């Protein structure tokens, strides 16, 4: 039998490698859509500003995509390496759903990313556009299947157990399991939002320093416009996910609300729990608000049951759940508020000039990614002690490995990934410092003026700003 240490380190390793992996899809799914839209605008308007935007963000996209690929392969292998018993039992279902991701999405992205990144000058604009679209479609399909597989683990359906192994009996029920569509849209919006904050934050950085004003106004405007539309929707969709979880995984919901006793109708802003004693040592609560957020009781009287109603051996980790949820939720409120202020400033025509706002948005650059990771901690830690909810315990899913090898791999993963992460951050910072490259000679079917006729925002300094500030292209 695997030891407790093997189980714990396998769990930590999976959590760590999954969170590392998630950072990159969180950015590249949205960026691929963004790049697609920008290139379409370029083809429509022939405004070279869009080409400049496209090439700049493509540089950041490319490396993020590569990191997403390699860290994704790691996750797939880990299902077999560390979770051999899980792999054996759920293979007939999860193996297929993730397999469909590879067949439909992964190959699509991999097939066209080469054309997207290296095709300019070799293939026509139409084919570049087609490649952009296929890469974006690939990332969306990828999200589709991965969320499907994970949702099946949250709300399993359409199967029977034969000698412990899950056997699919109805694929429609497997694929459209009860939480799937809610969680899919929640993740899709989250990815678009995270990429929008990245674009908005870096544009704000340039605007605050008066670098590449024409370039960054365009991207700042697009990103904040998108955020103003998406943020309210995301809160609505997220609320639906919470409602689905209340009926299928109530213990998860009780735990993220953070009450031990069932007598609080207020919303806990902050708690310091004592899981041993079964009470909160300290809590700050807004009266009546949890009744509103949770059971949607406008009278504010409804009370969410407490953690003490959960059998002791089925309690998820309250620290991870409460704080994971708060990171996501407080992040969402901050994002919504910032987007709303953006709309107000735009109406006052101060969006590009309010230094305080620009500096604030610069700090918001990683917030979407952080909120996504918070959300995933809630989803995964809240499902414990089950790996397939109500069906397969995590403790029964782990491979019988030696303690030393799992400890070794965990430490090595932490070391390697921290190095890779800092290299990646360094790379993005260098790209931001270098700024967008000036547009040089163009194919003859495009007007050769730097600013197309439909570019009122591309004021004359769009030309001047490149002199000296854009680092020379290595040639």
């Amino acid at each position: 039998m695997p030891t407790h240490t093997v189980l714990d380190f396998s769990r930590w390793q999976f959590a760590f490698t999954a969170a590392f992996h998630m950072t990159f899809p969180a950015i590249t799914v949205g960026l691929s859509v963004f790049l697609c839209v920008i290139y379409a605008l370029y083809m429509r308007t022939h405004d070279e500003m869009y080409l400049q935007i496209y090439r700049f963000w493509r540089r950041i996209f490319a490396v993020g995509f590569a990191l997403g690929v390699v860290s994704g392969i790691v996750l797939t292998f880990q299902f077999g390496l560390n979770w051999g018993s899980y792999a054996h039992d759920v293979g007939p279902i999860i193996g297929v759903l993730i397999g469909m991701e590879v067949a439909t999405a992964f190959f699509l992205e991999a097939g066209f990313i080469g054309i997207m990144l290296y095709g300019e000058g070799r293939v026509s604009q139409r084919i570049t556009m087609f490649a952009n679209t296929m890469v974006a479609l690939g990332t969306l399909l990828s999200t589709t299947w991965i969320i499907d597989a994970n949702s099946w683990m949250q709300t399993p359906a359409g199967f029977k157990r034969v000698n412990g192994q899950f056997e699919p009996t109805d694929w429609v029920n497997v694929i459209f399991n009860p939480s799937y569509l809610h969680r899919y849209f929640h993740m899709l919006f989250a990815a678009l939002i995270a990429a929008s904050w990245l674009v908005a934050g870096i544009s704000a950085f340039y605007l605050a320093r008066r670098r590449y004003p024409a370039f960054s106004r365009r991207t700042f405007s697009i990103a904040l416009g998108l955020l103003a539309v998406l943020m309210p929707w995301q809160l609505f969709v997220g609320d639906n996910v919470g409602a689905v979880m209340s009926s299928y995984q109530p213990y998860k919901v009780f735990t993220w609300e953070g009450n031990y006793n069932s007598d609080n109708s207020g919303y806990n802003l902050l708690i310091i729990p004592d899981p041993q004693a079964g009470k909160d040592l300290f809590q700050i609560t807004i009266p009546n608000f949890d009744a509103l957020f949770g059971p949607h009781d406008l009278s504010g009287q409804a009370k969410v049951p407490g953690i003490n109603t959960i059998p002791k051996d089925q309690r998820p980790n309250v620290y991870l759940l409460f704080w994971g949820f708060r990171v996501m939720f407080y992040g969402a409120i901050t994002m919504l508020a910032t987007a709303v202020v953006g709309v107000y400033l735009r109406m006052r025509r101060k969006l590009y000039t309010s230094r305080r706002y620009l500096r604030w948005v610069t700090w918001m650059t990683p917030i979407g990614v952080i909120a996504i990771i918070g959300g995933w901690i809630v989803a995964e830690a809240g499902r414990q002690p089950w790996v397939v909810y109500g069906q397969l315990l995590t403790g029964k899913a782990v491979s019988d490995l030696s303690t030393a090898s799992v400890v070794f791999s965990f430490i090595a993963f932490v070391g390697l990934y921290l190095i890779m992460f800092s290299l990646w951050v360094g790379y993005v910072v260098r790209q931001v410092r270098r700024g967008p490259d000036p547009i040089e000679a163009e194919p003859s079917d495009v007007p050769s003026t730097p600013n197309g006729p439909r570019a009122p925002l591309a004021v004359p300094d769009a030309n001047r700003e490149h002199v000296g500030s854009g680092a020379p292209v290595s040639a």
Partner: protein
Amino acid sequence: MTANAWFAFVLFGLVAYVALDGYDLGIGTLAMARRRDEERFSLLEIVARVWDGNESWLLLVALGLWGGFPAMFGGFFPAIYIPAILMLFSFAARGVSIEMLSNAGRWRMGWGRMFMGGSLCAAFLQGVILGTFVQGVPLGPNAHFDGGTFDFLSGYTVLTGLTAVALYTLAGAAMVKMRSQENPLVASVRAQGRKLVVLAGGLVVLSAVLLRVAGASSLTLDQPFRVAVLVWMSVAAAAMFVTAWWSFGRTDHTNMAFVAILVAEVAGVLGLVAIVYPMILPPDLTIAEAASPSSTLIFLLAGFGLFVPLTAAYNLYAFWALRTRPGPPSLPRAPSTVQEVMPTPGGG
């Protein structure tokens, strides 16, 4: 029936992976023999456009096993924990360094070492994993792995590791010839290719002969049909190695060496199947025992049957589209200026 059909499909994925990522990793080791940065960079550029697509086929194999033969996936992978984890590290280091180098637009030794070392280690570890497979992994009750951490390590698996490195490097050399016009770099790679044919051929023969010892407990050659397949596959592989040797001596027939090595790899995989079938994990686990229920296999066959031809089509298209020469010099330069394989100093 469905289980065998899916087994054939996974084999197809495995052949595609070896054929594609094999040359990809091999070019990484080939770069180690170059002295000039421009030459190394032009080798890297062959890999930069295709590596993630090629690596995808490994995912296809892993997931094909997981979905179709979960007992094999869940039983074999813990047995190769150490080599697989190290292979993943190599992939990670390699993927990052390829992107960093192609974004830098020129060779940098730090990233370059990661690229070359990652390629070498990944190739070696894949050979070790294959060696572990043919050596056999006994499973405990309910097809769960209960062996030791270092059971994978033996003289034989080190030999298969070295064989994989030689074979992949050979495929890399053939790809360099295929993807570029004749120039001093290609001429030198062709000369190396001839030596690699001899080296890889020798190691393959040695691995095959020692298999009788290493896999003695798990592999059988009792039926005449198995022997016949094995003999014919060996003849085919030998003929292909000779063809590759001949082709490396010439500047024309640019595709021949690569195709010959591809055919030899297919023959090798089929020969291996002739020995182990119907086992999917020697010595005990059969295809039928490891297979998923038929509802799963039918879904897999339908889903993948639909998408994999499409996949093959657009991967071929991408390969072809990026192969065409850049247009006239007035065209915009791509962010990382991709040149054909030519060691011109200004090429990077």
